[in-house]
Structures are given as structure tokens and as C-alpha cells.
């Protein structure tokens, strides 16, 4: 490479416009989208709200999706991390304060359901319209590859728990799926675990690597590197069937004989209910076209998640969200946390 002053300037000037340059290729779905595009919308870059910090799993998905949205529509957009209160601040903003003109949308996950419960009646999941599904992935149950449970799998760990109650240390994140899953494992083993609390799944995985806990849960992207380095071993996955990323690993359900250990993450696009219908329709179609792009599916696969072809319309997604909320409510009632 030759040294030119122009090269230096071009190098620096290219940075902020990288996204826009990418959007200039015309995507095959563009024409169909333009046909239903509302007049005068969008008139400014669309804010895509991610309620978790930059660099985390949700944020990475958000940024990939944002890039494909621009590629499909040719419109400008940006990811904005509205963080705090483990997601509560951003979710509350989306449900109660976000503008209703379609210039602010949420890239959210099923964790919105428990945040709605935590909002003390300020807002509900039904205050948002869920317009396009992105992807879903299960939780992976991991043990240390040099630890006491490297052989025997989840079954062995549960037997050890039964033999020595109150000695198995599990990384927990309070008030959510991690806690529910641990309770199901406790019931299966008939004994109590030591539920060590962490602020998020990542620190729990770190503790597992240092043998400071015996069992931790993580998403595929969080644990893949450690599996490749032979530090961690998967012992089970949540969900109704095995994940294609770990075909040999059994489901929790098959080991503990249940059908409701399906905690995982499902991600989608949501907008405030009051956004005009034609704008919602255009946004839904744009994201559907993005998720249908094999290049985006490949990006999702690299992150350890897969799209769900069954959830291809807003109606089906809204129904699925309602169903997830119902499953969680049913669990909360059954476990004595809620009365109805």
C-alpha cells in the first residue's frame, strides 16, 4: 500500500458512512417493499432500541439485523442501547414513552414478559405490537471439562445432588429463566442446590471456568469458544428437541421427564401499539424479507440462533408471544410465585 495523504483522509472519512454505503446495493425484495411503503415515512433514521448493553448477545443480534434492514430497505437506521435495570428501563421506554410515528422500534426478546411483570402495572406486553420474529435459541447447560462432573452428564450431576443435598453450586440469575430451570432441576433431584447469584449469564460462565460453580447456563455464542478450547462440556439443552448446534446433547426434558423445561430466548421486533397500521405493515414486511435472506440466516447460525419459519406473520408472532407469556404465568402460579 502506498502512502498518500488522500488514503489517510479516505480511511477516516469512510468510517461513519460504512452502513450507508452497504445499503446502496439494491436488494431483490426492495421493489415489493417500495410498493407498500407509506408516503413520507421514514423521514429520519429509524432508532432500533436494544435494552441491553453494547457488545452483549442481544446487541450483536440487533446490529446484524439493523445492517440487513438497511440492505433490504435502503433506509437509514441506528442501534441505540437504552440500558439499565436489567432491561426494565428500555422496555418501559418502548412501551410508554417511545414516539408513535414508527421512528423508534424495539429489537427485543421474550425477557420483556418478566419485565412487564416487574413494571408494577405501568405497562403490559400487549402495549407493544410484535411485528416480526427474528430468531430463537435454547439455553445450554454446561459443566467444567476438568471439574467433578466431567463424566456422567446431567443425570450424574442430579444423582450427586440427591446423594449430597445442598452441595451442588449452580450459577443463577435471579427473577427469570435461569431460576425457573434450576427449580425444575431441584425438583427432579429432590434436593436443594446452592444458587449462586450473578448479574447475567456471562459472569456465571466465568465462575464455571474457574470451578467456582459446578453448573452454569449459557447461550451458544457465549460457550462455543470454551467448548472448542476443551474447557467446558455441554450436558443438556432446554427445549422440546435437541439443537442442531449440539446434536449429541440431550434435552433437559428427556432427562428429568418433563415437557416444560423450554426456557430459552426468542427475539423479535416490536413497536408501540399506536404506530399507524401502514407503517407497521411496511416494517413487518421489511424485517420478514431480511430474515428470509440466506446471508442473515447464516449470520444467525454463527451466533448460535435459528429463525422460526412457523412465525412468519405478525398474527402468528403475537399469538406465540401471548402463549409464551401464558407458559411463564402458568409456571409462576405452579411454583407459588403468583396467585393468578
Amino acid at each position, binding site marked *: 500500500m502506498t502512502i498518500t495523504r488522500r488514503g489517510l483522509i479516505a480511511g477516516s472519512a469512510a468510517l461513519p458512512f460504512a452502513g450507508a454505503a452497504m445499503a446502496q446495493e439494491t436488494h431483490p425484495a426492495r421493489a415489493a417493499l417500495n410498493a407498500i411503503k407509506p408516503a413520507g415515512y421514514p423521514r429520519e433514521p429509524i432508532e432500533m432500541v436494544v435494552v441491553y*448493553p453494547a457488545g452483549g448477545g442481544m446487541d450483536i443480534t440487533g446490529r446484524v439485523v439493523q445492517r440487513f434492514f438497511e440492505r433490504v430497505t435502503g433506509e437509514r437506521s441506528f442501534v441505540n442501547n*437504552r440500558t439499565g435495570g436489567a432491561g426494565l428501563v428500555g422496555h418501559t421506554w418502548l412501551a410508554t414513552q417511545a414516539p408513535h410515528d414508527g421512528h423508534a422500534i424495539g429489537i427485543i426478546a421474550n425477557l420483556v414478559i418478566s419485565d412487564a411483570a416487574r413494571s408494577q402495572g405501568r405497562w403490559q406486553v400487549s402495549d407493544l405490537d410484535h411485528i416480526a420474529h427474528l430468531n430463537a435459541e435454547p439455553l445450554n447447560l454446561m459443566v467444567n471439562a476438568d471439574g467433578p462432573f466431567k463424566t456422567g452428564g446431567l443425570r450424574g450431576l442430579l444423582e450427586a445432588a440427591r446423594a449430597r443435598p445442598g452441595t451442588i453450586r449452580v450459577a443463577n440469575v*435471579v427473577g427469570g429463566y435461569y431460576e425457573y430451570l434450576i427449580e425444575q432441576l431441584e425438583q427432579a433431584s429432590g434436593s436443594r442446590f446452592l444458587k449462586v447469584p450473578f448479574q447475567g449469564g456471562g459472569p456465571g460462565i466465568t465462575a464455571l471456568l474457574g470451578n*467456582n460453580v459446578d453448573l452454569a447456563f449459557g447461550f451458544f455464542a457465549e460457550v462455543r469458544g470454551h467448548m472448542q478450547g476443551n474447557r467446558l462440556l455441554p450436558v443438556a439443552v432446554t427445549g422440546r428437541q435437541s439443537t442442531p448446534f449440539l446434536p449429541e446433547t440431550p434435552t433437559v426434558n428427556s432427562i428429568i421427564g418433563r415437557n416444560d423445561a423450554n426456557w430459552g430466548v426468542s427475539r423479535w421486533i416490536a413497536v408501540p401499539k399506536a404506530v399507524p397500521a401502514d407503517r407497521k405493515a411496511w416494517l413487518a414486511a421489511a424485517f420478514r424479507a431480511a430474515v428470509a435472506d440466506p446471508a442473515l440466516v447464516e449470520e444467525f447460525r454463527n451466533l448460535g440462533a435459528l429463525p422460526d419459519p412457523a412465525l412468519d406473520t405478525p398474527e402468528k408472532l403475537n399469538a406465540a408471544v401471548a402463549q409464551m407469556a401464558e407458559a411463564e404465568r402458568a409456571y409462576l402460579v405452579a411454583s407459588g410465585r403468583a396467585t393468578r
Partner: protein
Amino acid sequence: MDTIGGLLAGFEVILTWQNIQFIFIGSVIGTLIGVLPGIGPLAALSLLLPATVALPPVGAIAMLCAIFYGSMYGGSITSVLVNIPGEAASVVTCLDGHAMAKQGRAGAALGMAALGSFIAGTLGIIVLCLAAPMLGAFAIRMGPPEYAALMLLGLACTILMIQGSALKGAIMIGLGAWLAAIGMDIVTGEFRFTAGSVDLSAGIELLAVVIGLFGVSEILLNVEQSARGMAVKAKLSAVWPTRADWKASFAPILRGSGLGFAIGLLPGGGPVTASFLSYAVERRVGKNPETFGKGRIEGVAGPEAANNAAVSSGMIPLLSLGIPGNAVTALLMGALIINGVQPGPTMMADRADVFWGVIASLYIGNVFLLVLNLPLVGLWVQLLRVPYAVLFPAILLLALVGTYSANRNLFDLWVMLGFGVVGWFLRKLGYELAPLVLAFVLAPLLEQSLRQSMVMSPDGAMIFLQRPLAAVMIAAAVGMLLLVAFKRKTTTLVGGTA
């Protein structure tokens, strides 16, 4: 692993004009955000993250890293000149740095801050090269009991920072710990002290507290005193530290480097904690501790070295294990993943170009920053010629913009302004603010690791004695507290003052 070979290969990767441009841009941006109060490395990196998607991974990460350590260089500038920290890791630099500026030695303070940063950065990188995998493996063994013990030791060090009344210091530590407790309880998931407010449920933002307590209150004090003409008289010529300064700073820089490196290595540690602890240690080991806060160059050199070393060592868990230790390295990890590099123990083998390229970039960036910063010291000092009537409104505006940019939450601005008023009152009443900030940083980590330890231990508090490293640190903390108590008692007796 052949370290020299890897490093040479790393330089080969990084020494392209394109990558050098990225490092240079990162160094400049980093220095600027360090100078601007409020805008910290985290906000700058999240704003720039999308832009890195289109860049080659090594260049992108090298640029983001340069912003991080660049901000450590820049952060000391406003601390020294106008007593307003550029970012949280430069809070303690205000104490002696600004006192030096008032004595006309701003140039010496800034020069030593830059040199201390450079030496610490370089030492940190050398150790990082030689021992990254080993140190990473050690850091990961540190579990909740070791953390709890370490944080206890840290809080014991806070007590060493207290200059005047022990009671006032204890009140500040308690206040800091209470403020940090606001938000979600990690064990029960319940909200504490939030009064039903969604804004408070996220806890109070460190940046808003620091900028309010130190920056806004300083402006308020100056507004009050402006009639008396309290402008700092800076000698613009004396940029280079004197031989005596060098002699005094040499050991503090080495100690700060070692301490900062150790703190930065640990998940949860970081430049802020490192700089505070370094200051506390310098006060402890230095001669005439009562003159700290009145313009001792050791109080600038040590902490500035410590925060830079912490940045270098913070890269170790990330690069060698794929474990981010603080918010900024978590963001760097996201940048790696976005760029198609899977962080983890295999990265060193799979993507040796990224691993060694980034390490080599740290060398180059530190050289850039020294070359950028030393000549600029003279220029920065000229800032003092700007009348306060112009300078302070401009700083206040930047602080507002910077604090807002961190979370894009208006509530943070009210927090910042509120703490400005609180800080002004506290300073007028003779309370020290530094212990409050350190307690605010350390108390949540202590609480979390203490409660984790108690949950994970079948034998209750015995876990702290069963784990040798934790036991040693707790013994050190207790010893330090006893020493302080004894010393205070004897000074009181000898001095005859109550």
C-alpha cells in the same frame, strides 16, 4: 508458544498504513474524550462500534483499544488544570495535580502524568506478552471469596485516603456505599431504595455522580469565589518535570504499574479502582503523608500509571480467555464477535493475527500517545488563559452532553446537577469526596462477592478461611485497619489535639 515470534508476526500484521491510521485516529479520539468531562471511553466506544463492522478486525480492535487507553492519557488534563476530572479514573489526579497547577507546576504534573502513563502502559504490555495465558488462568481461579477479601482490602485502603476527621471520612464511605445500593438486589431481584421510580431501578450512574461531585461542584465553588479572583497562575514554560520530580515519581510509577496491572487483571476491577488504590498506597508509603493533596507529584504519577496499567492487563482475560472483565472490554468482545472473531481460549491459536496484532498495536498506540501528549502539554496549559467566565460554561455544557450520551437518559443529568450541589455543600463543610466515590465503586462488588460466597459455601463464613488467598487478604485488611487505628491514637496523644 513462541512469544517473540508471535509478537514479530503481530507487528507485521499491524504495521500497514491502514492499521497505523486506525491506531492514530483512535489515539486522538481517546485523548479528546479523555479531555472532555463526561464523555468516557464506554460512550465513545459504543458510538463507534457500528462503524467498525466495515473495517478489518485487527484495525477495528486496535482503534477501539487506542480510544480506551488514549482516554486514560487525556483524562488527567482537566483534572490538573481546572480540578474537573475528564473521566472517572482521573478523579484522584485532581487532588495533587490541581494543587500543583495552583503552584504554577501544571506542566510538570501533566508531563509526569503522560510519562507515567507511558511507562506503565509499556510495562503492562511487556508482561501481557510474556505471561498472558498464565495470568489469565490465574485470574479465572479467583472466585467470589477472593473477590470479597480483595474488596475488603480495597475499602481498608480507602480509610488511608482520609486526610482529616475520621468520622467525616466514615460518613462519606457510608454514603457512597448506600448510594451504590440503590437499584436491583442481585440475590433477591427486589428493588432497593428506588421509591417506585423506574429511573432509580437502574441504580445511579457512576459517571453522573463523579462529574456532579467533582466537576459541577468545582464550577459552583468558582462562581462563588470569582469575585476574589482565584485564577490559577500557571508557568507556561516549565513543561518537563525536574530531576527532583523524576526522582520522587520513579518508585510511585513502578508501584502504580504493578498495582494497576494486578487490579486490571481481575474481572470487575478496572482503571477507576486501580487509580484510587494507587493513591492510597502512595499516601501510605510516602514521606510526610500530610502534604498529600497539597501538590505532591507522587499523587499524580502513581495513579496515572495505575490506570494505564489496568487497561493493558484488562486485555489479558479478554484476549487469552474470551472473558471481559469490565464494561469496556465487554464492548471490545462484542466488536470481536461482530467482526467474525470468536474470543476464547482458542483465539490465540485460531486467530494469531488478531491476538498478536492487537498486542503489537498497544505498543504503537502508547508511543503515539506520548508523542501526541508531551508537546500538547504546553498547549493545554494555555487553556488557563481562557477566562473562567468562558471556560466553565463550556465545560458545564460538555459535561451535560457527555453525561447524557452515556445512557441517553435525562434522569442522569438531574443526578449530575443534584450531586453538583451536594458536592458543593460537602466541600464547604470539609468533607472529602474521594472516599465516597471509591466506596461507590467498591461496595457493590464487595456486597455481591460476599453474598455469593455465603451462598456457595456449605460451611458459612468458614469459606474465607478455607481459601488461602482470601484468608491472606482478609488478614492484611484487618492488619491495616489496626495499624491505622493505632497510629491515629498515638498521633492524637503525641500531637495533643483531639
